[in-house]
């Protein structure tokens, strides 16, 4: 029997069945996660301990509930972490019952795979790409879920939800597969893998509203706290054993919070008194500067800093 000679189900006619934008985004992300898990055999969820990966992990739990995650969680560890983030990572992974893989940039350095930058502006940010690609190859991962969003950065705005990497781990922005409807094409060749971005259509504000609605826990550095910082290139950085101060730089104490979580050497803080989720949401809604523009030195190298890193295999 086809639909043409069947009576339509009339009950949908009179009700609107409205759905909020957060529920629509959530459902889209869960659909993507399930689709990739079904079509690509070995998946891994890239987890930095940042707010986006926290949302991503939460969505993955929802996707397979009441079963556990069908893939491990991997942290690409620069060794230059905020201690609060590592504490959060370990607590959350234990709570979720996920398998945690730590891919260490220090090990990549020790093995001679990469060379550490030197000097006050040294960062391990860019080295992560090698560690990440090595780990993907070592474990044979075919799909790596990441929490990147298109509103973050303009090279990202051009990237697909399911984004292909050749067997050198490279992204070719000019050779991307079209994504139609909600039909994802997960076919790849040996050696290739895909990066999957279920939060592609979320904005920073969506992420915070969702965290607030779902009452998700986050590392404490996302909320205002007193910290010793110094000013460099117009941004505030935390003092730490990982950063060498220039002679002109004087540390001072300030109430700050972080909008993004990255390597301590390149993640800036913002002056803030927002200590609760509601206060952070209000602050984000009113901000006139993007999170990467305000807090990420790694994107300030050039107009195409992110594009260049992505082509090399960055997140």
């Amino acid at each position, binding site marked *: 029997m086809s*639909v043409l000679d*069947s009576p*339509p*189900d*009339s*009950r*949908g*006619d009179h009700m*609107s*069945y*409205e*759905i*909020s*934008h957060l529920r*629509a985004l*959530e*459902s889209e992300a*869960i*659909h993507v996660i*399930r*689709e990739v*898990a*079904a079509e690509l055999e070995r998946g891994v969820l890239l987890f930095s301990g940042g707010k986006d990966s926290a949302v991503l992990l939460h969505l993955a*739990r*929802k*996707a397979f*509930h*009441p*079963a*556990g995650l069908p893939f491990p969680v991997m942290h690409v560890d620069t060794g230059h972490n905020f201690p609060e983030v590592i504490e959060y990572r370990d607590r959350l992974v234990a709570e979720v019952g996920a398998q945690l893989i730590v891919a260490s940039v220090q090990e990549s350095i020790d093995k001679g795979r990469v060379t550490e930058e030197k000097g006050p502006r040294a960062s391990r940010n860019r080295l992560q790409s090698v560690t990440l690609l090595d780990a993907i190859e070592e474990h044979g991962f075919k799909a790596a879920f990441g929490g990147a969003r*298109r509103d973050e950065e*303009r090279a990202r*705005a*051009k990237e697909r939800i399911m984004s292909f990497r050749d067997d050198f781990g490279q992204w070719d*922005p*000019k050779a991307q*597969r*079209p*994504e*139609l*409807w*909600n*039909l994802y*094409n997960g076919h*790849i*060749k040996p050696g290739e893998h895909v990066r999957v971005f279920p939060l592609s*259509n979320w*904005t920073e*504000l969506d992420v915070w509203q*969702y965290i*607030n*609605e779902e009452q998700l826990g986050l590392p404490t550095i996302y909320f205002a706290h007193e910290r010793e910082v110094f000013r460099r290139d117009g941004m505030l950085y935390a003092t730490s054993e990982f950063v060498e101060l220039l002679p002109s730089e004087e540390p001072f104490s300030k109430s700050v919070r972080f909008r993004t979580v990255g390597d301590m050497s390149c993640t800036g803080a913002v002056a803030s008194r927002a200590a609760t989720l509601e206060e952070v949401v209000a602050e984000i809604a*009113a901000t*006139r*500067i*993007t999170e990467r*523009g305000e807090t990420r030195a790694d994107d300030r190298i050039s*107009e*195409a800093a992110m*594009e260049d890193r992505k082509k090399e295999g960055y997140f």
Partner: protein
Amino acid sequence: MAPGAATNGQPPTAASTSELVRFATAGSVDDGKSTLIGRLLYDTKSIFEDQLESVARASGQRGDGYVNLALLTDGLRAEREQGITIDVAYRYFHTPRRKFIIADTPGHEQYTRNMVTGASTSDLALVLVDARKGVLEQSRRHAFIASLLRIRHLVVCVNKMDLVDFDQSVFDRITVEFSGWLAKLDIHDVTFIPISALHGDNVVDRSARMPWYAGTSLLYHLEHVHVASDRNLRDPRFPVQWVVRPMSDEHHDYRGYAGEVASGVLRTGDEVVVLPSGRTSRIASIDTFEGALDEAYPPLSVTLHLEDDIDVSRGDMICRPENRPKEAREIDAMVCWMSERPLSPSARYRIKHTTRTALAKVDELRYRIDVNSLHRDKEANGLELNEIGRLRLRLSSPLFVDEYARNRATGSFILIDESTNDTVGAGMVL
């Protein structure tokens, strides 16, 4: 607030209960599309200061002489250097009522492929017409693709009204001419708005310079157009994505079928049939992380738990016994070709439809349609990149399809090249 004025000037604190609306824009470099998008983003406070500074810097380097808002959407180095747009760009903005996703598609030769991609997920299409030039071939092509992809709402912005002295007769003439073309297409909700994207007339607020125009501003229209009822809520369809089997002590015997509701409304207790097996059962519960729901509707992602222990796997379709999709071994479809490698009759492809994949052989290319004239060329023997044609496909195993016109989710498919793995075709079941 004045009638017809959008919720302008308020901070962009989209309530978490606001509705998501996706729309596609298409156009070429000089019809003002980028200016219009820039204006919408700017006036809804969705452009950030550092983005604007970066655009101003890039404009200066290019010698544009003004802050070129087009550079906001051009994200890649090659695009900024060459002043072209390579691909579909997605932009986001919100007002207190709604969150919008713009699929911004470029107007050059890759146009059809990109517009089909952008349109496939859109609720609404926005077409720009230059008031000085009138209805061009390109405007007609935009409208045709929107109609082919079954976008229910079309907004025609007659732009650059400032350059025709805000003359009503220009607007009326374009409205009449375009309406004549639209009558051949299948779009029922069409709204014409006279605007000046550059100066903001009728974009966010009603313009005082066109008192003869009785309609609303563009943003007001976008905020109020009713899209929720565009979903198919009549035909319950649930393609199974993933079988949830916890095998834990707590949920030892649990088997759930995870997926996104494609259409219709499913309720606990409903009698359902699983295709292709034809086995029937009832919905024992509609499970989510938060707990069970009484009912599920598109586009919710849920997990169905059935009363009977029947064999269900990924790719199966759960529906109601008295309302089933068509079990098809052959399908007729309109297909847009998306690959440099042309479609050849008798070629074989993978076909992905909902969560099910099969093989498809091209039995016949019935005609190729000229997107400018709607002329059907029955002598065509292939489809090149960006061409659209009607195909008859033979399938290696049945797919459970509805007509695209009735059900976008179960009427759409993609074709995948077996040797390159590329997505080469976008199909709509007739």
